[in-house]
């Protein structure tokens, strides 16, 4: 009997530990998927955003080509996008787009930008672009389509 009790305690404690670890690991600053204010696209689901970012959905409702913008490797927002949207590591991302270009599915990987300011400037210049910003960097020039918390 005592072995059973010990086993139950062990299992519960481990479950609690795993749950805490997952909760702690999931904590990140909010990153918002944004488009220029001139783009009238509606709210998107995480799956919609994934399809756009991996190149499976390449045009907006009106047929305009979607330009995906990414922040350069090393930026914390990019790490969130890779984890929550692409569900890939940086290496997987590189390989995915090399292979996608090789098969002819996409022309090239999304453009890498060095800062949030550059992201906003690019978004302002191209009404068909989509990118992402940390919540603190979101301003009136962009519209949020999805919040990744």
């Amino acid at each position, binding site marked *: 009997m*005592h072995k059973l*009790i*010990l086993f139950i*305690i*062990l299992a519960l*404690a*481990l479950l*609690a*530990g795993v749950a*805490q*670890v997952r*909760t*702690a*690991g999931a*904590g990140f600053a909010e990153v918002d998927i944004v488009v220029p204010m001139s783009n009238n696209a509606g709210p998107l689901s995480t*799956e919609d955003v994934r399809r756009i970012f991996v190149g*499976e*959905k*390449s*045009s907006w409702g009106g*047929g305009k*080509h979607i330009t995906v913008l990414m922040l350069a490797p090393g930026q914390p927002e990019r790490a969130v996008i890779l984890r929550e949207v692409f*569900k*890939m*590591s*940086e*290496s*997987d991302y*590189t*390989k995915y787009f*090399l*292979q996608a*270009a*090789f*098969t*002819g599915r996409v*022309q*090239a990987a999304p453009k890498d930008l*060095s800062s949030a*300011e*550059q992201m*906003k*400037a*690019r978004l*302002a*210049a*191209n009404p068909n672009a989509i990118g992402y910003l940390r919540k603190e960097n979101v301003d009136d020039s962009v519209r949020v389509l999805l919040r990744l918390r």
Partner: protein
Amino acid sequence: MFNCAKHAGLVRRCARRIRIFSGAIALLLAFNQIVPVSICAGDQPSKAEEEAIRRMNEQIQELQAKVKDLEAKLNALTSSIPARAVESSIPAAAISSVTPPPAPPSPAQEPQEDKSIPGVKLRMFGDVGYEASNRKGETNSFNIGTLDLFMTGALTDRVAILGEVLFISDPNNSISVDVERLLLQYKQSDYFNFAIGRYHSSIGYYNTAFHQGEWFQTTIDRPFMYAFDDQGGFLPLQEVGVTINGQIPSGKLGLNYVAEMGNGRVHLLGAEPAQNFQDTNNGKSFNFAFYSRPSWIPGLQTGFSIYHDHLTFSDNINHGELISTAYVVYTSSNYEFLNEAMLVRHTGAATGGPGVFHTPGFYTQFSRRFGKYHPYFRYAYVNAGVAEPIYGNPADGPIVGRRNGPSLGVRYDLNDHSAFKIQYNHLAQRGEKSFNEFSTQFSFAF
């Protein structure tokens, strides 16, 4: 009756159990507290760290202000000097040596980029290796595999060119050049894409997932059924014709289609696989493929393809060819599990009389990633009959026959663009002594 000794023993056992449970609980509670705290440690900066971050923020703001000031001065300067004067007065060397800091493009700059002359993106893939086997008549050798120059260029938003040129080392030690793919692509939408030219046929999964890039595939070589013509392959993996493909609106099912019409391939195995300029008959090859990538199981893809063609021999004997494939594959960051099966049906005997011949084949491949290491296992099987009119006549090229055997290996990713692989093959063939083979390969992609 009260038994003192028995009672004391019971108390001791209880106390022991309580101590064990207490110890276990204490240990596990400590574990539960320590692990999350260690993970969150980076999220809770100390006062000193906060002060350092605050100082860094101030410095960044100062620098940003300086950059803006300099940009404003630079813009004022360039606008006051005529463009031609700038071009003529600054030596080319000075232009190349002074790289301006990257600045965000203004809204006016973006359209200028779109109107510029279309550029070509060039990528390079290749591999070199070493191979040794105990097969009779073979010597251990270093080898260069294929140098692959891959080009893409966008003519407009919807029209693009894809080109792939291979430099292949042949068994006779010469290097041959091959236009592997040349496609004019038109992308109407995600549901309709059209291309014309030379392409890799969408038979099964492997052929269009990995193409000629050795770096993309986990193993050193391709499964028997997807071997290219110069490596004993027998399926029509390259075609000249038109291909359309796209998604089928199907929600979470993620359905896609491919339809292809081409010249088909010549009947002689090992010869130039695609009829690049002239078809030997008026009948065209047709290939239809459907596959699903359900969004609720990321990484899963399942599908089938059906290919039909007529092969015409030089003595005007026609053979019908029907190739059916089905597959289930699962790929993720850590796992790769590929399973494909095929059945080739040829009608008409070699003498021109009636006859039906079936050639089955399959492979299964499993790989698990451990950091940079990808150990893998594959088993492949193909069985073409002795009387097979296309695959069994030595006058028409290498005999396919029965081939089966396992492959074991490890891939090591040196970085995001290169890999080293080591592989052992055991191959059994009908009418020949089975043999072992050891191969290594260094492959890269840029």
